[in-house]
């Protein structure tokens, strides 16, 4: 595992979120083209984000309303 790989592996969330500078984004993209391991991690991170965005609201088991506004 070389230092370039480690560097880009740490930037995969930023790459996914589009928060890298454009030259870094391009360099990360070039690394991803060559690195199957990072491509797999990127897809798994994408799935985590999609799961988070798909979460729905939950209701409390008991109603905490008592004592509010009274």
């Amino acid at each position, binding site marked *: 595992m070389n230092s370039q790989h480690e560097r880009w592996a740490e930037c995969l969330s930023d790459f996914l979120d589009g928060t890298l500078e454009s030259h870094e984004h391009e360099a990360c993209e070039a690394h991803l083209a060559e690195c199957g391991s990072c491509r797999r991690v990127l897809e798994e991170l994408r799935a*985590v984000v999609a799961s988070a965005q798909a979460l729905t609201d939950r209701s409390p088991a008991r109603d905490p309303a008592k004592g509010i506004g009274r």
Partner: protein
Amino acid sequence: MAQVVPAQTEAAEVRRAAEGDHAAFERLYRTHIDRIYSLALRMTGEDLAEDLTQEVFIRAWGKLGSFRGDARFGTWLHRLAVNHILSRRASVRKREARNVFSAEVLERVIAPRRRASAEALDLETALATLPARAKEVFVLYDVEGFGHEEIADMTGVTVGTSKSQLHRARMLLREQLT
């Protein structure tokens, strides 16, 4: 499930509630409770979520007079909830420290099930096992849609720390979910 209430209707409800109309406040409460409870649940866990939800609505009731209507009531309430939950972090962390044992027990229960079954762990369950700071940033960014600058501002960390905690959270969740 939160109801969709037209902005004008809701603004009128807020005005009535601010004038002391308990029924109007209860309708606002019913509309927004699930969103606020879910936020508290994901940021702190089941032990505290109901208490924090109650505290948020008590604070909201007390501060209704300061709601100027520049934003939707839900947006104002949500921001108030985030700030309140973050302000209670110290007590939340103390509670979490006491719950380390139960987290270990949970892991012992979950791990064999994970090995025995190809089914991925549920995101909500996995979220509960994250370190506090990573969980906070993950919930605020990926679930609630705040940006890193807002999160840095709310939590008192740098943008770089917010980004690194988000990546840490996602990597830990990825390990648990795949």
